């Protein structure tokens, strides 16, 4: 049995933490969410010498102050799960700010190993770190590493083992000095905490005192209901007031300044500069990419490439998936006897699997692109350039990419909201994303615009897209002012230096997204597809379909006889006559089959739901066929077209004519297009929203889009009526 060491990886965003995690674990990693929150949790296991190392990648954070979910998650893991060793990945070329997290980890009293990462970048900039000296001053071993090349990782692992075994002499707990006045107050609070033996056994009393003085809401709540909680908080209040009266500034400010003071001292003593104020490569690149004039065109070029790369390059693999599913269906079709089970397998299961897999190429390609944008450091620049525009509509600069991708497909677009750090921004971007008209809605627009607005079809379709964008802006404002009132997060965004992404990290990231999608969403989408198949296939009205089957048999018989007679003629014309007869027979049979399909659609549960909602959609000018089509459109919006085809007994060009002749007015057609634009995003999108936020937000999206679709279509229909 090998000894297990649990190691948590902590570090700032952009510190190269993920690269080191990938180097150490390779493809042997498990990706999931931290319990209860949509923050990604990555774990990996590997062997080193006589040890099995269990590595947990904590979210990238700047501090441990319970400011964001990520910080709470990281802190709780260290506090509650007590990993054997915490490795803090520090960007050596940006030492001061990175060490702020380190200092907080030191305060927590964990067994810490420092990885001075990207040491080569620091050296190149003329920034020389005496790592032994720095480690000594901080009371923690410090190992220089270059994550992208894997340099220093062996030493890092050796150090982890040493620390775990208690053989590291450099590791000693040093209290981070916070100044005499603060220290006095810490002591007072600490004494009160120590009276509660359970509390002081579980957490370091000094750490708790510091956090309480810092007004840490999370810790205050923890203390409030514990033994002597009132007494402790009373002392905290007194101490805070005392500090405030001395410094004329709140304790958290003073404490932060003291921590940075400690860092300054340690850095000054252990590092020296040889070059100063050199213009970096990043500055040079930014001169072009963030240029006042070129900035936007370059940005739009990248976005265009990302969009084309995702959806155009994604096209052929999607066709391969579709033909694979068709091929499998065909095999089942041939080899199985006619039965409900066969229908379930072909339409429910295979159809459902196809419906799940079809999104995979887009997801993989989009995340390949996003991963490159993030790892190079351009993502932050994109947000920097777009923030002014997006902020005007209440969003973050980083919301732009998910929203644009929504025009291709909302499913990968919603997964892409993970690039937004702030929960409020993320949910807001998710909520309005379905209003970006995805490509699956286009066939519906093309059909109706072609049937009713022949000359202006292009303009009409364009106007639908614009309505979506305008509604997104309006709804964004409304949600911001109602659902997220007062939850404004400051925009403090780091612009990291440009870096060359490693192929390994990029592909691991891409594959992760794909596998998460398949694992977390695939199953649910499949189950729902089967349920919807059931609603579409049942109830099977035996009587009627038998009647049609009899008719089919009759046709067969009649034509068999006719063909027999034609054969007897033996004239030259006989082959021609037979051919015509067969053609006639097939046409007649097809007509009957269409009737069966129509009957089936109309009388299935879905058809009944569609008919039941007629009173609701009547004020919009919609008929029952449109109602049924809308209900089936929940699976995927392009299904609306095929359903209408069945209901109007027509296909493609003839469907256009059938619609035009059905008595529908252009106004109703337009109202219908608007409805299709807005109402419930497809099943897969709803599942994506559920998995990326919560079931409540998913249900909320379903309801608000339905209500909004009705209101806007109603306005279009009624107001249009006045003018036309």
């Amino acid at each position, binding site marked *: 049995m090998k000894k297990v060491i649990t190691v948590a990886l902590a570090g700032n965003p952009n510190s190269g933490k993920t690269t080191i995690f990938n180097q150490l674990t390779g493809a042997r990693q498990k990706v999931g969410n931290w319990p209860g929150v949509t923050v990604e949790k990555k774990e990996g296991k590997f062997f080193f010498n006589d040890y099995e190392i269990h590595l947990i990648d904590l979210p990238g954070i*700047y*501090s441990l*102050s319970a*400011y964001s979910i990520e910080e709470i998650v990281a802190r709780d893991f260290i506090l509650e799960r007590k990993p054997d060793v915490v490795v803090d990945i520090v960007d050596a070329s*940006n*030492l*001061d*700010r990175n060490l*702020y997290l380190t200092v907080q980890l030191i305060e927590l009293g964990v067994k810490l190993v420092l990885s001075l990462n990207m040491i080569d970048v620091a050296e190149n900039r003329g920034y020389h770190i005496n790592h032994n000296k720095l480690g000594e001053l901080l009371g923690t071993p410090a190992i220089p590493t270059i994550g992208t090349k894997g340099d220093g990782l062996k030493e890092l692992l050796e150090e982890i083992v040493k620390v775990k075994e208690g053989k590291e002499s450099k590791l000693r707990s040093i209290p981070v000095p916070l100044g005499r006045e603060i220290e006095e107050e810490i002591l007072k609070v600490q004494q009160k905490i120590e009276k509660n033996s359970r509390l002081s056994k579980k957490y370091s009393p000094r750490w708790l005192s510091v956090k309480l003085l810092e007004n840490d809401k999370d810790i205050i709540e923890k203390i409030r209901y514990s033994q002597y909680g009132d007494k402790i908080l009373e002392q905290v209040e007194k101490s805070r007031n005392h500090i405030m009266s001395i410094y004329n*500034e*709140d304790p*958290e*400010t003073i404490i*932060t*300044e003291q921590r*940075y003071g400690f860092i300054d001292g340690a850095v000054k003593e252990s590092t020296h500069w040889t070059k100063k104020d050199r213009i970096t490569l990043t500055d040079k690149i*930014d001169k072009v990419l*963030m*240029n*006042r*004039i070129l*900035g*936007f065109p370059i940005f739009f070029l990248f976005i265009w490439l990302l969009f084309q790369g995702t959806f155009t390059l994604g096209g052929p693999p999607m066709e391969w998936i579709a033909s694979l599913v068709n091929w499998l269906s065909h095999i089942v079709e041939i080899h199985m006897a006619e039965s409900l089970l066969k229908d379930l397998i072909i339409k429910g299961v295979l159809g459902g699997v196809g419906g799940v897999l079809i999104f995979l190429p887009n997801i993989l390609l989009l995340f390949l692109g996003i991963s490159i944008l993030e790892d190079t450091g351009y993502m*932050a620049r994109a947000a*920097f*350039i777009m*923030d*002014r*525009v997006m*902020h005007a509509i209440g969003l973050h*600069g980083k919301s732009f990419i998910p929203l644009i991708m929504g025009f291709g497909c909302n499913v990968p677009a919603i997964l892409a909201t993970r690039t937004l750090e702030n929960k409020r921004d993320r949910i807001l971007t998710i909520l309005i994303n379905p209003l970006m008209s995805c490509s699956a809605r286009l066939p519906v627009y093309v059909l109706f615009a072609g049937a009713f607005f022949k000359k202006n079809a292009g303009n009409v379709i364009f106007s639908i897209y614009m309505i979506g964008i305008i509604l997104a802006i309006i709804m964004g404002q409304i949600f911001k002012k109602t659902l997220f009132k007062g939850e404004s*997060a*400051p*925009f*403090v*965004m*780091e*612009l*990291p*230096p440009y870096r060359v992404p490693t192929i390994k990290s990029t592909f691991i990231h891409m594959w992760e997204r794909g596998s998460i999608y398949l694992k977390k969403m695939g199953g649910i989408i499949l189950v729902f597809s089967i349920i919807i198949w059931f609603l579409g296939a049942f109830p099977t009205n035996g009587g009627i379909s038998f009647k049609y089957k009899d008719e089919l048999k009759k046709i067969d018989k009649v034509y068999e006889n006719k063909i027999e007679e034609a054969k007897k003629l033996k004239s030259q014309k006989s082959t021609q006559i037979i051919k015509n007869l067969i053609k006639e027979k097939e046409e007649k049979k097809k007509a009957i089959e269409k009737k069966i399909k129509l009957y089936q659609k109309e009388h299935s549960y879905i058809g009944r739901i569609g008919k039941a909602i007629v009173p609701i959609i009547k004020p919009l000018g919609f008929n029952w066929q449109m109602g049924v089509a809308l209900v089936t459109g929940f699976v995927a919006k392009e299904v609306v077209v095929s359903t209408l085809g069945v209901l109007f007994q027509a296909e493609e060009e003839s469907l256009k004519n059938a619609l035009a002749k059905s008595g529908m007015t252009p106004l109703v057609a337009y109202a219908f297009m608007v409805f299709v634009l807005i109402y419930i995003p497809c099943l897969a999108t709803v599942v994506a929203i559920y998995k990326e936020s919560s079931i409540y937000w998913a249900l909320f999206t379903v309801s608000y889009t339905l209500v909004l679709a009705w209101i806007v279509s109603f306005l279009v229909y009624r107001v249009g009526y006045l003018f036309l």
Partner: protein
Amino acid sequence: MGKEKMEKLLTLENLRTGDEGIIIKILGEGNFKKRLLEMGFIAGEKVKVEKYAPLKDPVEYMIKGYHVSLRHEEAAKILVEKV
């Protein structure tokens, strides 16, 4: 701090590209203030205006040797002394 001196103080928002300032104090409170402090915006620290975004907002600053961007509304809450 005397009233006279207070009047001479600028906020970070008032600085232009290439300007440098020393941070005096962060106005505001709660999470916003804490985050700025943790990102290195502490009294006595030097901050340089690197560049404005193409649409003038946000603005890129350099502090503690790294680059960070703030919106005008945030920069307006940071009191500085121009150097």
